């Protein structure tokens, strides 16, 4: 954004930006080769790549339990779910690439610890019930955000989101079903479910980002229709939808201030610990290091594989060229 600000806007840029805003205001989609303000492009690259990183890093806490899933049905469901997240990461990197960046550059930023990803994935998954809580709450929160993004103004991002939302529908159900079995199960299982809800509730609410007043980039993103709803709106929607689901499970949400407010038509809830949020985002969460190390290890150990495939492809292309010369 700064590079744009530093330039003296020419009258031509001002005219184009006004036309762009007008175009977006008319609910039109922006496509890769269309003219767009530099800051719009930059914001999108940042947001889409963070989103992609979140999908990929987000595989790790759940992949942790694939080997230990307690039934074969749960095992295949979880495996398919985590595989979908890899697909989501891929769709999103592809969408970012339409803006003129390469996946490799984005990945390097992640591996260097310079890029952000959803801080929720820096929390540990010590229990099987965490697979339930993640599917139910974390995918639930992600879906709220992603449904909104299906109408985002950048075409490739919106299309990736439509595909992702279709696939997400089973993720949340998968998680909720795990919670259902645990909460209707043995006392030990029920305790497992409650413990997971206790640990995941607040981090899930933090997934929507800082309060609107503290979120400086939000207003511009809303103007460009990259975002269509504010952080606080989405958070409230999520809480309103989730509280009855917790009641159905017979689990209690770890917030003594949570109660229905008839006048607002919404649940009131207690204060979020934003200091914790800031610390986890800054790298001080329980698993930040492990998560990045796992990604780095996969990338480094995969390099010779990627190189081998390229080398082979080049040899094959040369051989084909030679045989066609002879022929």
């Amino acid at each position, binding site marked *: 954004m700064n590079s744009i600000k530093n330039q003296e806007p020419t009258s031509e840029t001002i005219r184009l930006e006004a036309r762009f805003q007008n175009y977006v205001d008319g609910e039109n989609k922006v496509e890769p080769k269309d003219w767009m303000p530099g800051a719009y492009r930059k914001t999108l690259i940042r947001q889409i790549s963070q989103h992609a990183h979140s999908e990929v890093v987000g595989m790790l806490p759940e992949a942790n339990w694939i080997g230990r899933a307690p039934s074969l049905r749960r095992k295949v469901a979880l495996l398919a779910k985590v595989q979908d997240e890899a697909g989501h990461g891929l769709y999103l990197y592809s969408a970012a690439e339409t803006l003129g960046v390469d996946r490799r550059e984005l990945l390097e930023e992640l591996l260097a610890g310079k890029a952000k990803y959803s801080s929720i994935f820096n929390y540990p998954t010590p229990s099987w019930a965490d697979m339930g809580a993640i599917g139910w709450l974390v995918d639930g929160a992600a879906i709220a955000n992603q449904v909104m993004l299906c109408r985002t103004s950048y075409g490739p991002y919106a299309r990736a989101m439509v595909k992702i939302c279709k696939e997400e529908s089973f993720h949340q159900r998968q998680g909720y079903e795990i919670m259902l079995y645990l909460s209707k199960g043995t006392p030990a299982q029920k305790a497992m479910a409650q413990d997971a809800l206790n640990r995941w509730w607040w981090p899930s609410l933090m997934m929507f980002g800082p309060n609107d007043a503290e979120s400086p980039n939000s207003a511009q993103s809303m103007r460009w229709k990259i975002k269509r709803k504010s952080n606080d709106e989405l958070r409230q929607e999520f809480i309103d939808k989730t509280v009855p689901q917790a009641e159905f499970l017979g689990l209690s949400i770890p917030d003594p201030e949570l109660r229905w407010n008839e006048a607002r038509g919404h649940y009131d809830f207690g204060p979020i610990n934003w200091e914790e949020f800031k610390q986890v985002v800054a790298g001080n969460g329980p698993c930040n290091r492990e998560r990045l190390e796992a990604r780095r290890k996969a990338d480094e150990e*995969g390099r010779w594989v990627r190189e081998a495939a390229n080398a082979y492809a080049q040899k094959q292309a040369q051989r084909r060229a030679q045989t066609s010369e002879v022929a």
Partner: protein
Amino acid sequence: MEFSPDLRTQHLLHLADNALILGQRLSEWCGHGPVLEQDIAIINTALDQIGQARMLYQHAGKGMNPALDEDQLAFFRTENQFLNFTMLELPNGDWAQTLVRQFFFDTYNYLQYERLTESSDPALRAIAGKALKEIGYHAQFSAEWVIRMGDGTEESHKRAQDAVDRLWPYTGEFFESDGFSAEAAVRRAAPLPSDLQPHWEEKVDAVLVEAGLKKPVLQWFQTGGRKGQHTEHMGYILAELQFLPRLHPEAQW
């Protein structure tokens, strides 16, 4: 668990255990693959394997007295009741070891399942019909990777050759033809494993040649899997796979 399955059941469990243990191993790649596209691809193979295991356990369990379900068979048997090939329980190692193992096994498995589609056991025939398409794809995928690695860079060639040398001694187990395999062949439920060997060698030779990899001359093979005798690694796999249901044997998940 009191457990003394007849030969017919042992044969089905052998097929199922191969699929489950390999699927369990492959799923360890999830989130750790060399590139996103291959992460997704290898998980597809893992999903296919575990899917096959489920169908086979269900079929095997139904015929037992008392009948057992897929989870009882997967989570409550002990190590020496598992009848999978020992190759499949070996750690994944690097991408070369995973894909060379996959190539050796897929090639065998394809030949085997081709014949299982003509099994005298109708349920097994139906399972094989579905599985064969999946295995055909796996076999192509792993063969292509073996060629790509063998004929890729110096490093990939070295790693692929190392994987071939390391895994070769475990291929002999594929073709052991006594016990439940002999019985299944007599019933015409399955091919005699030794009958598959010439085709397997032919296919493996062709791919190794194209990959520029040397076939080991070694003719001394490891054994044991079909009889429930496993490597040191098997216990760890089962510890991970089974611990939760065994900790809460009365629970539903």
